[in-house]
């Protein structure tokens, strides 16, 4: 028998519980990545030295594997006296990695705001914080929402890497179930299908959001 339905039903609740960890890690990392990305994008627009350092950092993070960054943080942070559990270290690594990707997206969005908007704010004597918060950001964000959404899906699909530092998310749970029962077929397939369904649903969600935002901005 290649597929055992009883076994499948038995492992479903365990996998459902593990999927909560996956979703928690995804959402938490994404929120931090969004904030971090904005900060990095602003730093890159800042002075020449700060800007160059921020660019080099983004380039370094984007061109090295996430897995080794996760290992790095997981093993190096305790040396610096910061003892974190695997979940926290994983979330930090994920948000750093995707924060760098998001900073590129923000940069594109900010650069797309016409110069005249900045000049008009100067003419109206708005403070730079006010300009940024009330004029520039509201125009920069809506066009980049789809791109940010794609990174949300990408981040979601990278959460299995946390299994490498023994976070009990979907893939690690499936692997453990597989090695306990000597049957990998059912848990791995169920996990694969879960990922497929969730990413297709979120892709559809992003398309819907994109249409909505476009409708609002074309006036």
């Amino acid at each position, binding site marked *: 028998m290649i597929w055992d339905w009883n076994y499948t039903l038995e492992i479903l609740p365990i996998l459902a519980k593990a999927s909560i960890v996956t979703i928690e890690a995804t959402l938490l990392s994404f929120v931090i990545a969004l904030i971090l990305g904005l900060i990095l994008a602003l730093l890159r627009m800042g002075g020449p030295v700060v800007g160059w350092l921020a660019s080099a950092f983004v*380039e370094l993070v984007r061109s090295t*594997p996430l897995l080794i960054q996760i290992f790095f943080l997981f093993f190096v942070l305790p040396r610096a006296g910061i003892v974190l559990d695997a979940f926290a270290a994983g979330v930090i690594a994920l948000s750093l990695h995707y924060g760098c990707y998001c900073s590129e997206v923000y940069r594109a969005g900010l650069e797309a705001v016409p110069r005249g908007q900045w000049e008009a704010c100067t003419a109206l004597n708005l403070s730079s914080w006010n300009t940024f918060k009330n004029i520039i950001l509201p125009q920069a964000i809506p066009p980049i929402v789809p791109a940010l959404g794609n990174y949300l899906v990408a981040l979601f699909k990278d959460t299995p890497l946390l299994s490498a530092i023994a976070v009990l998310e979907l893939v690690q749970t*499936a692997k453990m179930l597989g090695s306990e029962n000597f049957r990998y077929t059912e848990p*791995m397939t169920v996990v694969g299908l879960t990922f497929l369904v969730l990413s297709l649903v979120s892709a559809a969600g992003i398309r819907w959001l994109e249409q909505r935002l476009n409708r609002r901005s074309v006036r």
Partner: protein
Amino acid sequence: MGIFSLSAMLVAALIAIAIMAATGDNAVFMPGLLQGAWLTVQIAVVGCLLAVVMATMAALLRLYGPSPLRWLAVAYVEFFRGTSALVQLFWLFFVLPDFGVSMEPFTVAVLGLGLNVGAYGAEVVRGAIQGVQRGQWEATTALNMTRWQALRRIILPQAFVAMIPPWGNLFIELLKSTALVSLITMSDLTFKAKTLNDFSLKTIPIFTLALLIYLVLSLCITIGMRRLEQVSLRGMVRGRGR
């Protein structure tokens, strides 16, 4: 970043590796790391070749294939883009043996990564082909070319130029995904770094060296693709009379 600052970064990374390897007794880690890096390069190169082949096939089938094959191509792209690369690798590695198909870890690695990146590449190829101006197709009809001739001589060469930058990104993605094969028992760069760390506990130098080696490899890809883009743009720019 421009090709100049990329090259500067490459040189800086190489110097950093040399300095780190020369300080203390870090030199003992280098043979292991370089051995791992060589396997990483092998997987990346074969994986990239497979990805390009799969992407081209899937894109052409999706655009011009008969409908059953077209659906197959769509299913391939959606399936591999929708699930996680690690899940795909684990599935190939742990589940396929249950169906009586056992493969070498190297084959699993190349297949998993190549198929995964190929699915993303299929969308790149499709976008590039569809980006070629309609007039080009019409001109080939006027010249009485067959569809295949038109595609091979007129459309693909023009689409090729548009594909280079996104393929550069995908090759880097693939290089970075090779780190995943350390989780299916292959001793690539990440695996070597992890094992060296497990018994020497010199975490910071080992992982920094590994990160720098990955950085060097990615920079080589980026610079190579930039050069390729410049070389292949040469005739185009003149032809368009820019």
